[in-house]
């Protein structure tokens, strides 16, 4: 699990951990059934307090993104379709919201803004297809 923590950003470390692991699960960086590092391993590696990690893990567990197998550890969970869509919508919502506001502030019309979005979307999508 590749995580980067900014100790001075002012964002609580457990939130940074949650956000990055959630992102990895949603984008298949962590696949269903993949085991997460133990609290101790991750805390030692990131040089943070173990309680911070265990707090982050319990939030992810409550969110249904990871599941605890007794005596074994934590694993990326199978997330139900409806729930998955909900999380995706929320992640996307934050970013698109920002883009929409910036477009309005700059006086860019809706059509132009949509074209912008399509252009970027297609650019990356095409690259991805070529690689596969």
């Amino acid at each position, binding site marked *: 699990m590749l995580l980067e923590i900014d*100790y*001075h950003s*002012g*964002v609580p470390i457990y939130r940074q951990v949650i956000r990055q692991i959630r992102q990895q699960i949603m984008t298949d960086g962590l696949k269903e059934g993949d085991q997460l590092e133990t609290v101790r391993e991750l805390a*030692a590696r990131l*040089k943070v*307090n*173990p*309680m911070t990690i265990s707090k982050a893990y319990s939030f992810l567990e409550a969110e249904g993104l990871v599941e605890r197998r007794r005596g074994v550890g934590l694993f990326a969970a199978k997330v139900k379709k409806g729930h998955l869509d909900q999380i995706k919508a929320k992640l996307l919502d934050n970013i698109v919201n920002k883009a929409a506001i910036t477009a309005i502030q700059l006086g860019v019309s809706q059509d132009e803004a949509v074209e912008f979005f399509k252009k970027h979307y297609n650019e990356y999508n095409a690259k991805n297809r070529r690689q596969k």
Partner: protein
Amino acid sequence: MKNGNPIVQMRSVSKRFGEIQALDNIDLDIQRGEIIGLLGANGSGKSTLLRHIIGLYLADEGRCLTFDTDAAELTPKELGRIGYVHQEGELLEWMKVEQLIRYVSAYYKTWNHQLEEKYIADFDISLTDRVGLLSPGQRQKVAILLAIGFEPELLILDEPASALDPIARGQFLDLLLGIIQDENHTIIISSHILSDVEKVVDHTLIMRKGAILRDCSFDSLREEFIRFTLSSLNGPLPAELPFANTVSCEKSGGRAIITVQNDTQEMLEAKARELNCEIEFRPLSLEEIYKIVVSRE
């Protein structure tokens, strides 16, 4: 992770030095396995509080239990589980550094020689120098080694990093994080260099005039106050903004910079949407949070 009784329990502890109320009715529990940041201005009572924990000062009123023992009656058995570094620490000036380390380590069965060697190498300690002639920074490094070498369950650090240069401070904080990976260790660190403690603490105590203003987890302190910028998408902002618990608000035309207490980003976003405003959050540093807390109460 929190097992057993708190490692320190203070109940209605008060202490006066002449006219000065150094501690004012302190109630405090310190749990095992925490790293506690003790914050406060000079003279707010931080050192006095720490000294009560190890029985160096005795309370005028109230009670302080350390390891379930009255702090006035701590025996070498309990004291041998506590490491203490303080500002004007007295060391045996006439010894050489190596002699001093051997002398102190002889008192502890639990002395960790591996840790000692690693520390001496990492912190560039010169063993042949006379203790009395060390620079303040070197001296502080030696004092820290003597306090952590026996791997105490409770480590009390009173302004431990004040004389260290930035690189040594960074190493020192990493060292603390190494110690805390074992849940049996508890560290209390007082500091007014807030950016230092920010990285390592998980619990905060804020003191002012001998009283404790805040005793809470560092994360909840972090999330108690939110600062954001509001930018209107059409025209000026309304005269009355719908935010409760506003700590500060600067407004100019279509923009405002606001700090609120006890609100969530989600709630604030919803309100911004109603106002047809862009909202941008900026996390506060511990220093800014500290100033808000101290100025408000």
